[in-house]
């Protein structure tokens, strides 16, 4: 679908800094991801995970550094529908009067005309996306009537319908049922084979080991970054979580 003739990096973040009204949220952070890579973003609450996502999507401006998406600016990545953001369940108003179909259709808005009239191709994309997350029975269900897992899948479908090559997922496994967890992990493998790049934040150390090729440990800045097998060590995790022993995080068996 797309040609990759730049230096082969989907995401390049170089020494980026973000501050809110003078309060530093993230500094000197670096990240490079290639197509087909899944990277876990691990850190405490307030360590800058969401800020990192916001910087990549252009939702907040970086005060220093450089971000390249497919070799181009964040602005043109937005125009090209390159990045999809899957929010945390807590990050959205679940009482908003909107159906599964309408949420997934929002994934197509960026490539529609100004009135956002769905074309046949948009309808097909939405249908297909909803099938992939197994919500065909809930097309017109208001999101307020869905379970946490179903809601998570709705937003995943939105990202699929958008046909983005980069997926940013904020806590994709939090508050979901086992069925959804299984479906998400299957989708991750499919996304990887399709050459999509995935950056996901998580609290769950087991998921990092299971899915992530790479891991980025942050605490306002990058603590460690690299292959999961090399970087995801008890020492690094302890540093990331401000001295809490990994035994505490992993449970006694590790």
């Amino acid at each position, binding site marked *: 679908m797309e040609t990759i003739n730049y230096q082969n990096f989907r995401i390049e973040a170089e020494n980026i800094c973000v501050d809110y009204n003078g309060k530093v949220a993230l500094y000197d952070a670096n990240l490079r991801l290639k197509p087909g890579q899944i990277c876990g973003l691990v850190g405490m609450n307030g360590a800058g995970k969401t800020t990192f996502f916001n910087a990549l*999507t252009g939702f907040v401006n970086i005060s220093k550094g450089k971000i390249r998406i497919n070799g181009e600016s964040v602005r043109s990545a937005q125009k090209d529908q390159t990045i999809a953001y899957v929010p945390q369940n807590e990050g959205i108003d679940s009482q908003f009067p909107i159906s599964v179909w309408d949420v997934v259709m929002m994934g197509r808005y960026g490539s529609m005309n100004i009135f956002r009239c769905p074309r046949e191709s948009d309808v097909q994309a939405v249908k297909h996306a909803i099938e992939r997350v197994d919500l065909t029975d809930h097309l017109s269900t*208001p999101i307020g009537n869905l379970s946490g897992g179903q809601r998570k899948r709705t937003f995943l479908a939105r990202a699929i319908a958008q046909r983005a090559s980069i997926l940013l997922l904020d806590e994709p496994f939090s508050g979901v049922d086992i069925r959804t967890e299984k479906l998400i992990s299957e989708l991750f493998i499919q996304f990887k084979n399709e050459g999509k790049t995935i950056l996901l934040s998580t609290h769950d150390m087991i998921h990092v080991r299971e899915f992530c090729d790479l891991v980025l440990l942050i605490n306002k800045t990058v603590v460690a970054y690299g292959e999961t097998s090399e970087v995801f060590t008890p020492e690094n995790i302890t540093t990331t979580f401000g001295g809490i022993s990994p035994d505490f995080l992993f449970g006694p068996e590790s």
Partner: protein
Amino acid sequence: MELCSFLTLDSFITDPLTHDFMRKALLMSSLVAAVCGFLSSYLTLKGWALMGDAVSHSVMPGVVVAYALGLPFSLGAFIFGVGSVALIGFIKQKSRVKEDTVIGLVFTGFFALGIVLVSKIKSNIDLHSILFGSPLGISLSDVKQTILISLLVVILLSIFRKDLMLYCFDPRHAKTVGINVFFLHYLLLTCLSLAAVVGLQSVGIILVVAMLITPGATAYLLTDKFDNMTVISVLSAIISSLIGIYVSFWFDLETGGSIVLAQTFIFLFAFLFAPRYGIFKLKKLFAGYK
């Protein structure tokens, strides 16, 4: 004498229509209600009730200055409405005072400025009609202006209907797919200021916020679909306006207050009896009889 007319519902409705000012008031108030009702679904979902209150009060000095200078009052209102929001944002960012405090502080300041200006600029401005509305005494130039502004707001909201819904629901996604969130924010604000201006003719500055939030809140209790919510909101706003004006005609009551009271009663009805979200869920009651 008037009580006799009550014997037939027909004359209850048709008698007022023989008066020119009543026909005009009913038509204009319905138009204004429709505009405010349309906007109302966005404001309630975005959580901008307090913002609506702030903007509608802040337009006061703008209206007074515009009248004094012979400019269209909508222009003055618009400048002060958007200006108040800019000022709120600025103070919030540059000080440690909490947002709701800043909002309350700025809009009362603007409102006070408006009242002081009215007392200083002795012109033909009727403070009472600005504060409480005067749908029965609306002038021809006001009619033209109201129609123009209403059309403008309806057209803007119709074009950007879906974008504004997305902006209220998930601004982060909007930004990520290249939709101009900054533009949408100010578009909604612009519509809010304009709707406040037309709304204040019906119910006055003090109560105009009710026109901007009550219909949306009522509709929110009655449906889970955004499009339906907009339709219900507009309809309930129009119906309350008609009820309010008729009631105020027959019982000689303040018109603006009657319109808002009608809206409040419709909200309370929805609050108690809405099929899914009401306290006494009607659906369940009916199910019991089957």
